[in-house]
C-alpha cells in the first residue's frame, strides 16, 4: 500500500496523524481537567472577608489551592471579626508578597503543604479565628508553651504578629472577587441605626448576563422589616462587575 505512494506524501501523512493525535490527546486532557475542575469549583464559597484580614497573604503562583485547616471551613464566621477597611486588606496583600517569600515557593510550590501532613495545632494567640496553614516556617513558630505564656501575659492586646497565609492562585482570585463584592456591598448598604446587633439576613441576587439584576430574594429574613428591606435595597443599588455576570450571589448581611 505504501510502496506505490510518493515518499514525501507518506512522511506528511504520518506527521499529520501524529499532530492530530497529539492535539486530540491534549484536547481530551483539557476537557477532562476542565470538567473535573469545574465540578470541583463550581461554587465559589467565599466564607468571610475577614478570614485573612490580619494576615499577610503570600501567593504561591504554581499552586491552585493551599489546603486550609478544616476549622476555618467549618466555622466561616469568626465570633467578632474586626471591621477592617477592605482597602487596607488589599494593601496588606500587596505588601505581603515580597520576592523573598515567593522565590522559595516557586522551587517546590505544591509540595510545601504536603511536607507537613499533620500540622501542629497552632496556638490560640496567633491563629485567632482562623487557623493558619502549616506552611509557616518553623523559625517563626514559637513553642506552644511559650505562646500560652504570652497569651496569659497579654490577654487584651489586639494586634499580635500574625503569620502569613499562603494561598494558591485561585484562592487569590477568590479573595480579589470577595474584596470587590464586599466593597460594593459596603458602599451601598447602610441599615438604620439602633437595630439589634445580632440581626442577620441572607439575600440571594440573580444577575443576568448583561449585569442587570434579575431577581432579589430573601433566603433567610432577620425578622426586622427595616433591616431586611435595607439589605434588599442595597442589592438593587449595587453594580456588579463582569466576573459576577450571569451568576447567583448569596450575600449574608450581618449587623
Amino acid at each position, binding site marked *: 500500500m505504501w510502496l506505490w505512494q510518493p515518499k514525501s506524501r507518506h512522511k506528511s501523512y504520518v506527521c499529520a496523524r501524529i499532530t492530530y493525535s497529539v492535539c486530540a490527546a491534549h484536547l481530551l486532557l483539557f476537557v477532562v481537567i*476542565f470538567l473535573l475542575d469545574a465540578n470541583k*469549583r463550581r461554587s465559589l464559597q467565599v466564607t468571610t472577608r475577614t478570614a485573612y484580614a490580619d494576615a499577610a497573604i503570600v501567593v504561591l503562583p504554581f499552586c491552585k489551592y493551599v489546603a486550609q485547616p478544616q476549622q476555618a471551613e467549618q466555622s466561616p464566621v469568626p465570633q467578632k471579626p474586626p471591621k477592617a477597611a477592605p482597602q487596607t486588606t488589599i494593601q496588606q496583600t500587596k505588601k505581603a508578597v515580597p520576592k523573598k517569600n515567593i522565590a522559595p515557593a516557586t522551587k517546590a510550590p505544591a509540595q510545601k503543604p504536603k511536607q507537613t501532613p499533620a500540622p501542629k495545632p497552632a496556638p490560640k494567640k496567633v491563629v485567632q479565628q482562623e487557623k493558619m496553614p502549616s506552611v509557616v516556617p518553623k523559625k517563626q513558630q514559637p513553642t506552644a508553651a511559650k505562646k500560652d505564656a504570652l497569651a496569659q501575659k497579654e490577654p487584651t492586646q489586639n494586634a499580635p504578629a500574625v503569620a502569613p497565609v499562603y494561598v494558591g492562585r485561585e484562592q487569590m482570585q477568590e479573595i480579589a472577587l470577595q474584596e470587590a463584592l464586599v466593597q460594593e*456591598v*459596603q458602599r451601598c448598604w447602610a*441599615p*438604620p441605626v439602633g437595630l*439589634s446587633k445580632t440581626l442577620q439576613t441572607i439575600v440571594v441576587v440573580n444577575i443576568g448576563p448583561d449585569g442587570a439584576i434579575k431577581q432579589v430574594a430573601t433566603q433567610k429574613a432577620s425578622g426586622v422589616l427595616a433591616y431586611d428591606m435595607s439589605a*434588599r435595597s442595597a442589592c438593587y443599588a449595587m453594580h456588579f462587575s463582569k466576573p459576577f455576570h450571569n451568576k447567583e450571589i448569596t*450575600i449574608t448581611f450581618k449587623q
Partner: protein
Amino acid sequence: MYVLMFFLMPLMINAVHVQTESVQHAKMPIALQIDTPYQALAQALQRDLQMTQQFTLLFAHAPAAASAPFMLKVAPAEHTLHWQLIDQQEKHVMASGAVPAKGVPATQAHRIANQVWKALTGNEGFFLSKIAFCKEQKGPKGRTLKHIYIVDANGAAQMPLVQTPTINIAPRWHNERPLLFYSEFADANVRLMYVDMKKKRHVACNFDGVNMLPAFSHDGKVVFSSSKGQGASQLYYLADGKLQQLTKNGGNNFSPTLSADGATLYFCSDYQQRGPALFCFDMRTKQLDRIPDTCPSESPSCSDVHGLVAYCKRVKGVMQVCVYDPKAKMSRQLTFDAAIKQGVSWSPCGQYVVYSQQKGIQSELVMMQVDAQRSWTLLSCREKISFPSWSSSFESVGA
C-alpha cells in the same frame, strides 16, 4: 489552551457566597401617601418617625419618594385610620394596621407611629410617651420659681403641668399610670406630690424634711428618699402598705431607681465618700455594693428593657452622661462635649436617653440614640431646664 483555561476559571463559577458587616448607617426613606385633609396628621407622623433618626418620611409627590423602599399609606375609614406599609419594589403589602381616629391629629399620628415603628424595627413604640422636666422661671419680686412642664417625645406640644408659685422639682413618672410625682417646696418641708393629666394635685408623702424622687417597679414596689427631719436622707421602701427603711447610714441617700423586676435598687449616696457615688442594693439579699469609679455621679436611671443604668458623672470638671452595664460591670461615657449635663432618663424602648444640658446661657433638652451616640436637641430655651423624666407609653397621656 491551558492559559485560556486559567483565565476562564473565574467565569465558570456560578454561585458566589459572601458575608459582610455594616460599616455605615443611614436613615431609611419612606414615602408617605396620605389624603390632603390630613396634613396635620402627616406632619406629626413625619416628625415622630424622623425623630428616631432611623427613617426619613418623604411625601409621595416628592421626587425622591419613588426610590424609597417602603410606602406608608394612610387611609381614613369610619372611626379608624388604616395604614399599610407597601414594598415599592415588589408592590405588595408588608404590614398593615388600624388605629382609632379619636383625639387630636398629633395623638392619632403617635398611635400610627407606634404601630409602624414596631412593624419596622420590632421594638415597642414610645411615641405616646411624654417627657416631664423642670423649668426655672422668674416670679414676682425677682423670686425664682420652678415649674413642671411636659412635652411629647418628639419635642412638640410643650405645656405646663404644675405652675404653683413655689419651687417644684424632680418630676418622676409612675411606671403604669399617667401620674407625675414631684417635690414641692412647702413652708415646713419639701413634700412629695403627684399630679394627674388633668392637673389635679395630691400630696403623696408629707414627712418632715425632704421627701423626693420616688422609684417604681412593675411589681408595685415604691422606693423614695426622705430625711424625716433627721438630717440625712434615707431610702424608704413601700410595699403592700408597709413602710420599711432601707438605708441606715450617716450619708445622704437619694435618687433611687429600681430595675424592672424590682430586684435591684440603684441610688446615689455620699456615705463614706467625698461626693455622691452610685450604689447598688440587692432587694432580696440586702447586700449593698458601691459601683466603682462613679464618684461624683448623680441621677441614675435604670432601663426597664435591658437593665442598663444611665447616670451623670463629672469628668474633668464637666458633668457627662455615662451608662453602666450591671452584667458586664462596665461603664461607658456617652457624651464628651463641654456642655454641663444634669439629669438623665431612659426612653420606654431603651434605645434613647433624654438629658438636660446647659450651653452658655442656653438650656437644652437633648435626646440621644445610645447605640449610635447621636444626639439632637428637643427643646432649647433661656430658662434653665432640669430633671427630665421620660414616661412609659400611656394612651391617656397623649389623648
